Every structure is written in structure tokens, then in C-alpha cells.
């Protein structure tokens, strides 16, 4: 009995069904990879005002979004694939200080105005999970 200590020997030990199964799994993963890459959607900023979704803003087009918050007007701006709160009538301006957000999973919030922005979709960025399974 030959030891299975090289790829060639493993290949020779495989039955026809083994090879078909392996080839199928590889084919599926390649098709999946190509499909996932082709249909990849750009990141979208989901805008919530007072816990209700009021807009979904694609980040691939520059835009200016004036909104009406609890305390007063609040303006969002999309520029170069990132989104920021550029004006808000709130006491501390934490929201405008949060700066530009672009990665999936990033959030912007203006608590006094009841605004919450979450970036969804797009490529897994810095917010991808790490060290999940052992």
C-alpha cells in the first residue's frame, strides 16, 4: 500500500466520483467568485431619521441631501464615495466632527437630531469580521 504523501499519489488514490466532486466544488466556487465580483453593488448609506428609514443614498455619486431633523435642518453630503454630516443644528456638533465615512459598517449619528446613517453593501472593508472561527 503506497503512502499518500504527494499530490500525485492522492490523485491516483481518488475514485472517479472523488474527482468529479472535487472538480464540481472548484467549478462552483469559481462561478460564485466571478458572479459575486460581477454583481457587486456599491456601498449605500441608509439614512434613518427618528428610527425610520428615510433614504438610501448610493455613495458612487456626489450628492447633497438636506433633511429636517428633530431640532432643525441637517445636511448630508456625498463626495468621492464618502458621506458626512456637513451642517446640523444641534448643541455639540459631534455629528459634523465625525467626518467622512466610506467603509461598509461605518456609521454617522446625530443623537439630538434623531439622525442615524449606516453604510451597507459594497466590498468588505476594514469592518470585515476578524478572528471569528477557530
Amino acid at each position: 500500500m503506497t503512502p499518500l504523501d504527494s499530490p500525485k499519489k492522492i490523485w491516483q488514490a481518488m475514485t472517479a466520483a472523488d474527482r468529479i466532486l472535487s472538480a464540481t466544488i472548484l467549478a462552483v466556487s469559481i462561478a460564485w467568485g466571478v458572479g459575486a465580483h460581477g454583481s457587486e453593488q456599491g456601498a449605500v448609506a441608509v439614512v434613518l431619521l427618528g428610527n425610520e428609514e428615510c433614504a438610501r443614498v448610493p455613495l458612487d455619486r456626489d450628492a447633497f441631501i438636506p433633511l429636517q431633523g428633530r431640532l432643525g435642518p441637517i445636511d448630508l453630503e456625498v463626495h468621492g464615495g464618502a458621506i458626512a454630516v456637513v451642517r446640523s443644528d444641534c448643541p455639540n456638533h459631534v455629528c459634523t466632527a465625525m467626518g467622512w465615512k466610506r467603509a461598509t459598517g461605518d456609521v454617522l449619528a446625530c443623537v439630538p437630531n434623531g439622525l442615524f446613517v449606516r453604510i451597507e453593501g459594497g466590498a468588505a472593508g476594514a469592518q470585515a469580521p476578524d478572528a471569528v472561527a477557530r
Partner: protein
Amino acid sequence: MKAAVHGAPGLSARSAARLGLLVSIAVTLQIAESLIPRPIPWLRLGLANAVTLLVLVRAGFRAALLVTAIRIVLSGLLLGTFGGPAFLLSLSGGMAAAVVMAFARFATPPLSLLGVSVAGSAAHVLGQLAALASLLRLGSSVAMLAPLLLATAVPLGLVTGAFVLAIHRRVPPW
């Protein structure tokens, strides 16, 4: 002589002891593997899964499921991941692998242990990804990693299968 183990009807003392030994081997392998640095968090050889396959072939589906479940719970407790996301992923992956391998053994045309191992390896990846997508709601990042992980399941499954085949040939029947 077949002394029944208290509380586990149908399980002789001999096979209980053997399964305990196999669980400890599986836990050791799983923890040893978790200490090896990896390029991608989910990418690993899956030697602990080799124990599942060996038990499946030698002692049947129930024993394999039992050894796998105990292995994952004990490893979770020892690594401090018990109940956390890593634990849930490990559990769903391990269980999916055990179930799929149990069916794959009886596939027609027949798969060798190498093919069964590849099926288990792929099922492990898909089980983990399913848990990742549903429990942790990480749809997009899962979609990014899935094809790569599924592709690597084939060579890794073959290596694991080669181990099991070698052990199965050399270790005399129980």
C-alpha cells in the same frame, strides 16, 4: 463482556472509553490548529474533522456526531470562545460536515474517504458561512470570502482525507 454505561444505553464501556480517547485527540488537534497563525481567519486544515470522519467510518453516524459535538463544546470551553460567535461558527461547520459526510459515504458512484473528506470540508465551510450570514448578519463580507474558502476546501479536504485513509488502513479494526 459488554458492560453498559450508565445513562447511555447501547454504549459499551469499551466504546465509551474509545470515544473519550478520540474526543481528547480531536480537542487536542483543534486547539493545536487554532494556535497556528493563518492568512485568513477561517482557513485551516481541519484535522479535528479528520477524527469525525474516522469515527464515522469506524463507529457510525451517531458516534461521529457525538464526538464532534463534545469536541466543539470542550474546545470552546478551553479556548474561551464558548457561546460566542467563534463557537457558533465552529458548531454549525462541524455539524454540517458530520451530516454531509454521513450521506457522502453512501453516494453512488462511490466516493473514497478522500471524496467524503472533501465533501465534509466543503460542508464545513458552507455551514460556517451560513451561520455567519444568518447569526451575525455579515452578508456582503461573507459573499466576498465564500468562493475562496470553498475552493480551498478541496485541497484541504484531500489532505485531511489522506490522513484518515492512512490511519484507517494502519489501525486494526476495533
